[in-house]
């Protein structure tokens, strides 16, 4: 195997851009926590973080510093290697999906043909982080959290795949770049209009996939204390949080790409390349936070009922109708 200077050049470019993307998204994730706290505080008529820096703007940085300085407690009786690996599994699986999202025309870190499948696979894998941590913690609360997570992710995975399959049918490709282009060429410009049901299914499943309210059963604070990461502390604990917020960003970005026309907007704004993509992304993230401030939590069996009895049949019907229309038109 020989390295031409050209391929070496390509590798370096990819590595550098991956690093840049990672840093930018880390920044986003850090400030997503800040935004969440501020927005929820606003909804709940309180102030939110306002001590560190002007209006608490440096709060995420302070949080990270604090968590790094915390003692890393490994309880006795845990399965050490698994306990150590679990948060990393969560984080890597949640974060890698960003590499496949087309942020701009021809601006995607890894443009390959089954990108959508890859993202789905990653989000399934991220459940391993939760299950492993629950299992390895040697704690009953954590175990219950892990079990809840595995059941939840498996059932909602199907609904989410069904909703995305309708999009694939419409676009005729698994490549996310092509899906965006197909949307722009279609008469609707965004797939949200013909695929509103699919979008609904996708969004509900995305809430469940990322363990957010009203599907935050695995970490139900008032039932299982903190669920699967109850035994974690310090930076390992922070990694789980990072994974959750990365998950939110990836799911929102996927929704933007598949349903909201990706990077395209109603008109061009010169000089600000990612403007429309970011606007849509922030809007969806805001909805994530808004839902969290509004809704109570489902019960375990009700959650399964919603997934299997409503979302999956609805997804199947939607997929069938999409295929039928595609055939007829």
């Amino acid at each position, binding site marked *: 195997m020989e390295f031409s200077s050209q391929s070496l050049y390509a590798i370096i470019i990819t590595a550098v851009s991956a690093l840049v993307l990672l840093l930018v998204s880390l920044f986003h994730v850090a400030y997503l926590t800040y935004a969440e706290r501020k927005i*929820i505080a606003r*909804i*709940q*008529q*309180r102030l939110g973080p306002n001590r560190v820096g002007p209006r608490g703007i440096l709060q995420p940085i302070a949080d990270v510093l604090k968590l790094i300085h915390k003692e890393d407690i490994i309880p006795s009786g845990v399965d050490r290697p698994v306990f150590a690996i679990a948060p990393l599994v969560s984080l890597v699986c949640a974060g890698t999906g960003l590499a496949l999202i087309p942020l701009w025309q021809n601006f995607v870190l890894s443009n390959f043909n089954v990108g959508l499948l890859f993202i789905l696979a990653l989000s399934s894998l991220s459940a391993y982080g939760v299950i492993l941590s629950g299992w390895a913690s040697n704690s*009953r*609360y954590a175990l*219950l959290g892990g079990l809840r997570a595995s059941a939840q992710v498996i059932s909602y995975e199907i609904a989410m795949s069904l909703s995305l399959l309708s999009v694939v049918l419409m676009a005729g490709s698994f490549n996310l770049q092509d899906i965006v282009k197909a949307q722009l060429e279609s008469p609707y410009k965004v797939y949200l209009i013909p695929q509103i049901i699919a979008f609904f299914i996708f969004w509900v499943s995305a809430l469940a996939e990322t363990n957010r*309210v*009203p599907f*935050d*059963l695995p970490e*139900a*604070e*008032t*039932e*299982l*204390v903190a669920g699967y990461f109850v035994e974690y502390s310090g930076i390992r604990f922070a990694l789980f949080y990072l994974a959750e917020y990365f998950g939110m960003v990836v799911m929102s970005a996927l929704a933007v790409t598949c349903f909201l026309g990706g990077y395209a907007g109603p008109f061009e704004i010169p000089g600000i390349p990612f403007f429309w993509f970011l606007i849509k992304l922030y809007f969806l993230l805001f909805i994530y936070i808004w839902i*969290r*401030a*509004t*809704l*109570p*939590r*489902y*019960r*375990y*069996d*009700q959650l399964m009922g919603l997934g299997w009895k409503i979302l999956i049949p609805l997804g199947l019907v939607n997929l069938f109708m999409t295929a039928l229309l595609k055939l007829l038109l």
Partner: protein
Amino acid sequence: MGLSLVEVNSKQRGASSFDEPFYINMGPQHPSTHGVLRLFLELDGETIINCDPKIGYLHRGVEKLAETLNYNQTIVLSDRLDYIASCANNTAFCLAFEKLFGLQVPRRARILRTIVNEMARISSHLLWLATHALDIGAMTVFLYCFRDREWLLNIFEKICGARLTHSYVRVGGVRQDFTLEIIEDLYKFTEVFPERVLEYETLIDVNRIWLERTKNIAVVSAEEAISLGLTGPVLRGSGVPYDVRKFRPYDAYDEVEFEVPIGKNGDVYDRYRVRMEELRQSNKIIRQCLEKLSETEGEPVLPENAPDLLIPERVREPEPKPHPKKGFIFTGKEVPVVPPGEAFASIESPKGELAVYVVSDGTNKPWRLRIRTPSFVHISALPELAKGHMIADLIAIIGTLDVVLGDSDR
């Protein structure tokens, strides 16, 4: 105290779908056991086979301690029972003592007591709604309720200087009259509060998830509720219209008009509805009492015929002399001796029926003081209610019983 792990295991073997049930220890340090309740759960998956409450983590020996204090000093202990609504406890104690002494409470003092009792009910129900909603996952209701509870606590602070442990109700009456500012504040509060109740209801009452989490959970029929000894909103949620305020009116409750809301199905949702309706009724009672206050302007709030009982010793002896050995002690007269006898009084506290039974042997201290607290009885009903439900429901059930551990452990 319950069975050991091995005993429970062998006893319940074959009852679940798996050979070995799953044991979990919930509390005393758990976010939704409302204090220091500890539950020993036997689970099949997430379904509760058995639930064994363990109490006593907040036991302070209030009943025994009361035997060493004179009657006025006991009021301070009563604050620490159900610390969410301490005025209700004060009232129960005072009613029993007044019966024992044969004291007549002035009308204005009775109206003032009714007001603070209903304020305590509102603040207790607000805290209940806040934590109940938070347990089920609705975080915003929690903070909305605390916003309004804060308002009430500020009024309490103006009334008696304390926010939680009021000791405002005294034997024979109340500590002091309301100032004009307090009455204005209360008028403002009662004006706005019905809108606020509506606001909480719009947040959760029509929410599908909330309905699914509360309807048909922990259903108690009227007969069951009576035989379990449940009282208060929990009993009324099952359709039994029993309210001490109506059945044995005390203070000024016979002068005011209010309804006793009752439920139909006796599930978590009905009990929630009953309490929400009680918030409105309490508001109505306060409103009526405020109007009655203007009729009794200037009347005394403590009876004059029993000054020895009411004035603290320190006031009578302005210069307490330091004791050479024991340091600083009161040298004033002791509270006079009360005739031997016994008395019983019960009130409708926010949590349920709170009863006090006091026996005097002729000295200045109670010979025996027995308190029947609603939380203790409600916790004992918990295993019955929780059986067959899921962990998530257990949280809702603890919330719906509205237990305060200070009340149950005493």
